[in-house]
């Protein structure tokens, strides 16, 4: 690759796909309600080839969006690239010169897809708390509509970390014939009580913010509640070791303790910053809905708690990756998944990558992760071509 191409920005454009205009076309949700006139915001990278065997779907995590890589502008220096830019792009591990990459915002989200802050077509007002409670499977069913719209018969790969990994597992269960391989990173086959507990506290922070107003806030958003939820969640994405390395007990401004309750420590300042930044780009009601969807996620539920039975239909090749310092979705949870897949004679590989970054490692350990994903996709493409 020449240097010019290396430095040139990958420019992408957000796209929209609307479905469910009619009653029959509406998306039937797990809660029993129907979602009509739903929009999916998505981005694509690279070209779908004639054989249609190079399509890769990437699923984002709780706070992610459709903008997985690249830039929207040619030369805005302040613009940051997509959330997995080290992994996706021309010449990157998920090489967009070879693969047609699709990433969409989940329904219930707040980055272009229909969610609680969208207009309810029945009332012409914002859904807010009238938005139906969605599940991870609902998100996947909506993505399946997008797949049909894009005229893709089979994904070469579906790839996701954290909540994206949960969607990967639902894809493998719901549409086994339409996936060649699935890569589930830093995820779990069912959300643990510990994670449910963290989600609960985060939601309580939002709901007890007076500005939340039962979800009916207008211009004054429940920023304190959402920022607190984010700060709490952010701690769960790091590790003791990474926090020690990054902040230590360093004081942010002065050399001495302030002997009051304003922020003294660098770690406090960092969390505060993360909270503030999050409020700028994320919606409080979406946070409630998406964390609830994660709470309800249990792959074994479809077989009365028997994970092996629930995964009996899985046909694709799978790669399950966890990280040593991830205590939110620890390796033991990935291993439960691997065990159930082995019991079903699924071609599964697993690796616990050494990392000190905690749960966030799936965004940061791009070197090891990149090599594994690139190799796995390359082999799977050969397998798919040779039938």
């Amino acid at each position, binding site marked *: 690759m020449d240097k010019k191409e290396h430095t040139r920005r990958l420019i992408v454009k957000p796209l929209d796909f609307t479905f469910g205009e009619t009653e029959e076309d509406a998306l039937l949700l797990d809660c029993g309600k129907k979602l009509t006139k739903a929009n999916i915001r998505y981005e694509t990278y690279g070209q779908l080839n004639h054989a249609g065997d190079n399509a890769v779907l990437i699923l984002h995590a709780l706070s992610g969006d459709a903008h997985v890589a690249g830039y929207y502008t040619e030369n805005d220096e302040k613009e940051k690239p997509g959330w997995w830019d080290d992994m996706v792009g021309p010449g990157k591990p998920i090489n967009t010169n070879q693969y047609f990459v699709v990433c969409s915002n989940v329904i219930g989200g707040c980055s272009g897809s229909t969610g609680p802050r969208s207009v309810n077509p029945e009332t012409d007002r914002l859904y807010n708390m009238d938005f139906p409670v969605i599940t991870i499977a609902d998100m996947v069913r909506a993505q399946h509509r997008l797949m049909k719209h894009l005229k893709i018969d089979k994904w070469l790969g579906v790839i996701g970390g954290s909540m994206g990994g949960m969607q990967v597992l639902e894809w493998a269960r719901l549409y086994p014939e339409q996936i060649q391989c699935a890569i589930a990173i830093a995820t779990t086959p069912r959300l643990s009580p510990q994670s449910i507990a963290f989600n609960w506290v985060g939601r309580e922070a939002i709901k007890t913010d007076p500005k939340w107003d039962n979800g009916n806030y207008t211009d004054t958003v429940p920023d304190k509640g959402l920022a607190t939820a984010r700060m709490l969640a952010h701690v769960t994405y790091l590790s003791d070791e990474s926090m020690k390395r990054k902040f230590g007990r360093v004081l942010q401004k002065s050399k001495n303790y302030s002997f009051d309750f304003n922020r003294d420590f660098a770690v406090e300042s960092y969390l505060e910053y993360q909270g503030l930044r999050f409020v700028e780009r994320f919606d409080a009601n979406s946070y409630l809905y998406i964390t609830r969807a994660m709470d309800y996620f249990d792959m074994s539920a479809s077989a009365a708690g028997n994970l092996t039975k629930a995964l009996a239909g899985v046909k694709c*090749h799978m*790669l399950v990756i966890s990280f040593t310092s991830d205590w939110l979705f620890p390796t033991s949870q990935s*291993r439960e998944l*691997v*065990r159930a897949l*082995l*019991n079903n*004679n699924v*071609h*599964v*590989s*697993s*690796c*616990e*990558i*050494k990392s000190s970054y905690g749960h966030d490692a799936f965004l940061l350990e791009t070197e*090891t992760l990149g*090599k*594994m994903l690139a*190799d*796995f996709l390359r*082999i799977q493409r*050969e*397998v798919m071509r040779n039938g």
Partner: protein
Amino acid sequence: MAELLRKELAERRPDLLVIADMIPREDGVRVLDLGCGGGSLLRLLREEKGIHGIGVEISQDKIVKCIASGVPVIHMDLDNDLMFIENDSFDYVALSRTIQAVRRPDLLIRQMLRIGTLGVISFINFGYIGIRWQLMINGAMPETKTLPDHWFDTDNIHLGTIHDFRRLCSDIGVNIVREVPLGNSPFLTKLNPNLFAPTCVFVIARR
């Protein structure tokens, strides 16, 4: 591809060729390779016989290699994690030049025969004359091609002889179905494997 790999292994790991030849080309035969390294055995089985086995490996670097050559591999520690695999889920469980590096070889053998019908083990024979010679003449722990490390930094913490292995199997109620000693001289190797075979491949089964 397969020929090249076979040639390379004949040099480097002849025991893997013996193990591969013991596993029949049957539809749906299930193979688990414990301590599979970079996946050579499983690649050979795939390319020569169309058998799609699964490996178990503890080293991240070796797992990366397996994935690059399309060999399914599970990240596990043989000392602690094998109970995650169900009873009778494999036909063949292979263990090549690894048994000396686990904490409890006896427990691992039991695990192998719980998981699989047959166990195939390639065993480094510490009774081999070359090793005995070094120990006797130098009075120091032997260092050989297959055991290249020093006594203090080696992973090989449970070295034994062919005699020791046979006795262990007898003590824990395991049948030795086949025994294929590998040595330079077929005559001497057959005559006294414990003295003349640096490596021996055993096929074991439940009694």
